[in-house]
């Protein structure tokens, strides 16, 4: 199976504080890899480097065998919730159509084919019936499905998700990841998702990468969940603390 994302010895710091220290891992084509780790572990920073929004101080990042700046194949990106001005009347269909931006031919006006592709993406995520509604009127879970549709409208081969279910209730989170798994299987998408939802992502991902400045563990979900590195990274309390009723 070919490799879609190759990260080698990547270093990055904010104001002289190293956030990433020699990070290296690979993402196989067609896989669902979850990037897990505590707050400040560098998950979002790493995704921003993969998107070309940040440049690493050292190391190399390749997506589809090309340096990030020179990538030719589109990447779909969904982050935490979009914060529009209250009541801004952009419709669900308009949000999905934004995903065609990178695909517009001169004179860069959306054509019928672009609108059809955006409509098909909405259909795929089960939001077609809401196409005419205001985006801001949807629930958080519905909004995230529309953002997935926006990403799909760009016909990506790789989907990057950055804490996409933050603020959603457990049922909406489970529905969201079930959709992502369906897309991975049916569309052949490669998925790399940064998330705090250990339980939910480990139930859906093929592989976990535990990040805490550097890669502490990587492998099948159960293997990473059982590793001592996980408890160390998240600073889980020892079981006897709870048993003794000690809140600290």
């Amino acid at each position: 199976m070919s490799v879609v994302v190759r990260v080698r010895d990547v270093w990055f710091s904010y104001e002289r504080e190293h956030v990433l220290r020699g990070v290296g891992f690979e993402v196989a084509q067609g896989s669902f890899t979850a990037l897990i780790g505590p707050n400040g572990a560098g998950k979002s920073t790493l995704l921003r480097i993969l998107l070309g929004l940040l440049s690493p101080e050292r190391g190399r990042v390749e997506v589809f065998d090309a340096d990030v700046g020179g990538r030719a194949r589109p990447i779909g990106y969904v982050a935490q919730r979009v914060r529009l001005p209250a009541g801004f009347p952009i419709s669900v269909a308009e949000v999905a159509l934004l995903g065609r931006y990178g695909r517009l031919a001169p004179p860069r006006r959306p054509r019928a084919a672009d609108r059809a592709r955006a409509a098909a993406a909405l259909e795929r995520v089960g939001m077609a019936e809401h196409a005419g509604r205001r985006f801001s009127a949807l629930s958080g879970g519905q909004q995230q499905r529309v953002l997935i549709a926006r990403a799909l409208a760009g016909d990506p081969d790789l989907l990057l998700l950055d804490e996409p279910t933050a603020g959603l209730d457990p049922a909406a989170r489970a529905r969201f990841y079930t959709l992502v798994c369906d897309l991975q299987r049916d569309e052949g998408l490669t998925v790399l998702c940064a998330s705090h939802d250990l339980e939910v992502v480990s139930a859906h991902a093929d592989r976990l990468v535990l990040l805490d400045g550097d890669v502490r563990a990587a492998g099948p979900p159960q293997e990473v969940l059982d590793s001592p590195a996980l408890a160390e990274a998240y600073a889980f309390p020892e079981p006897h603390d709870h048993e003794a009723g000690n809140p600290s």
Partner: protein
Amino acid sequence: MSDFLDYGFVQRAVVTGALIGLSCAVLAFFVVLRRMAFIGVGISHAAVGGVALGVVLGVPPVVSAAAFSVAVAWVIGWIAQRGRISEDTAIGVFFPTAMALGIALISLSPTYRQDLMGYLFGNILSVRPSDVWILAGLSAASLGVLSWFFKEFLYLGVDEEAARAAGVPADPLRYLLLTVLAVTIVASMKLVGAVLVSAFLVIPAATGQAIAGSTRAMLGVAIASALAAVGGGLWLSWLWDLPSGASIVLVSAALFFAALGAARILGR
């Protein structure tokens, strides 16, 4: 009404006002989407400093105001982009500083104070035929830029990070939008004045937002309400001898409240 339109200066005011109202309404759409209302206030007051600078340097005030406003807009944008000081703090520093500079410079040129009132509060009825062509050119340029980059500005306003990831050149476009904002503000000073122009850059879009169900409808309502405010405001200004800027903004505000009422009735 026919008497009102018989006068040449009124005809020029209506044409100029319509052009500026159109570009302000389209720009207001992005001002609301990108939460730039306060930066509009900052730039409009900085423009007064630019007018004063022109007086002292012997440069046409519109030219000096445009150059000064664009410079202030870029500096505010640059400081905000670096992230060490927030955008509203940067505006809070530059807004009174540029205004104070204007007041200080104008105090050195007492004969100019009457004209300054025109820039502060607007006097579109004093627009000369040559002004119409200059303002028409500026409005056309603003509309051209906003129209050509509409999708990019929309994407950046909705989700800047995703837009950057999709290849939208966010930083150049940010400075381009700030430039258009500054130029439109300077062009609008004759119409509504520096004190009130920021309201004209928000209220039409807010009217559209209150009642419209899509961005296209919001833009349409914003343009229609801006043009209605210019026409109605100028007529009231002529009828009751009111300052043109104040009457235009008051009509614009009345349309906003009417839209809010209509939205409530329609259940939007």
